[in-house]
C-alpha cells in the first residue's frame, strides 16, 4: 500500500478546484472546500489502498462536502439560497464546436444535478478518473457510475442548449 505524497498535491489543485466548484456551485465555497480537504488529508499519513492520488483526493473532497452539509443541516434556519459569483471567461471557442459557454454557466449546470449524477460526472468528466476509479472513489458499482454519467450528461447538455426556451427534458 502506498501513501499520499504531499509533494504531489499541487499538481491536482486545478482539477480539484473545478470539481469543488461543480459540487458546490460557488467559486468561494469551492475554495473553502478544497482548503478544508487539503487540511484534512495533510493532517496525517494517508494510505491510498490501491487508489491513485486523484481518486483518493476526490473521495476526500466528497466526504468533506458531505460532512459540511450535515453540520450545516443541524443548525436551525440555515441558508437555502445559492450564492452567485462573477462569471470567468475560460472556454476556448476554437476547440469547442458549440457556442462557448462561460465556465461558471457550465459549473452551475453541473451543480444543479441530483447529487449522485453530479458526483459521477465530476469524477469522470471534470476530474478525469476512469469509470472503475470513479466507482471505487464513490463507493458504488461501475455500471451504476456509467448510467449516472449518461443521465448527468444528458441533463447538462439539455440545460445548456442555446435554444432551450420552451423545450422540456424527456
Amino acid at each position, binding site marked *: 500500500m502506498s501513501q499520499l505524497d504531499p509533494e504531489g498535491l499541487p499538481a491536482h*489543485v486545478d482539477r480539484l478546484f473545478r470539481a469543488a466548484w461543480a459540487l458546490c456551485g460557488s467559486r468561494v465555497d469551492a475554495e473553502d472546500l478544497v482548503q478544508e480537504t487539503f*487540511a484534512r488529508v495533510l493532517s496525517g499519513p494517508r494510505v491510498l489502498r490501491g487508489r491513485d492520488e486523484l481518486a483518493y483526493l476526490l473521495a476526500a473532497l466528497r466526504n468533506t462536502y458531505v460532512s459540511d452539509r450535515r453540520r450545516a443541516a443541524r443548525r436551525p434556519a440555515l*441558508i437555502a439560497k445559492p450564492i452567485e*459569483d462573477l462569471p470567468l471567461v475560460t472556454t476556448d471557442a476554437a476547440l469547442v*464546436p458549440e457556442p462557448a459557454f462561460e465556465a461558471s454557466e457550465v459549473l452551475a449546470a453541473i451543480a444543479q444535478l441530483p447529487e449522485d449524477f453530479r458526483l459521477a*460526472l465530476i469524477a469522470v468528466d471534470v476530474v478525469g478518473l476512469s469509470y472503475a476509479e470513479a466507482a471505487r472513489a464513490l463507493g458504488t458499482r461501475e455500471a451504476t457510475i*456509467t*448510467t449516472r454519467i449518461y443521465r448527468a*450528461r444528458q441533463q447538462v*447538455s439539455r440545460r445548456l442548449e442555446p435554444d432551450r426556451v420552451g423545450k422540456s427534458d424527456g
Partner: protein
Amino acid sequence: MNLRHRHSGHSAEAALARLADGSIAENERSELERAVAASPELAAKLAEQRRAVAIVAAVDIEAPARLLEHLRSPQPARRPRSRWATRRGLIAVAAALLIFALLGARDHGLDVRGEAHLALARATLAPPRQSASDHAVLTAAVGGVAFPDWRGRGWLAIGARSDAIGGHSVETVFYDSSGYGRVGYSIVAGSPLAIGSAQSVRHYAGVSYAVLKFDGATVVTWDRDGHTCVLASRRAPAAALLGLAGWA
C-alpha cells in the same frame, strides 16, 4: 431500439456514454457504431453525450494562487501528541498561515484587506434574526454596533460567521439580493484597522467611506462608533455598497 451488449452486459445508456468519451472497449465499438448509424434515435443520444463531454472538457479554470500557497506553506513538525490534537493543531496552523499570507505579514498592524477576505468567505452559522425590540436591526452586534435588517431594501440576511484576526474578533453577516447576489458585512471589534490605499473616499453625514478593490471584489469600509465596518461583494458595484453603508 433497445440495444444490449452481450459481452459487457451494459445498457444502451452506458454503452453510449462510453462511446462518447472514447472509453468503450474496442471489441464493442464497431457493433455500437453500426447500431448508431442505423438509428437516428441512438445517433441523437450519442450527439447529446458528446456535446456534454466537449462542454465540460472546455472548462479550464485554474485554482486561485492562494490555494497553492496554502499547500506550499511549511507544515509544522509532528510531535508525539494525540491524533486529534495534532489534526486540530495542523488545521489551525494552516488557517493562520493562510490569513497571514493574505495580510502580507504586515508589521504595522492589521489591514482592512485581511478582514475583507472574511466578508467574501463562506457562511458557517445561521443568519441572526430580526431584533424584537428594534425591527431596523438584527440580533447580532459587535460592541453595541448592531447589524442592520435590510429586508425592506431587498437584502435578506442569509448566514453569518465568527472569526478572530490578530486578537480582533470579527463578526460577519451575509446578505443576499436577487439583483446583486451576496454581500458580506463584517464588523471588527477593537480599534479601527488600517485601510491602506483606497480607490476613492466618499464623505456622507460626517462619515468617510473608503472604496477599494480586493481579490476582484469591491470593498467599502468605514468606522462606526470606533469599530471598523467592511462591506464586500463580487457583484454589487461600489454605488450599491455605499448606499447600504449609508443605512448601516
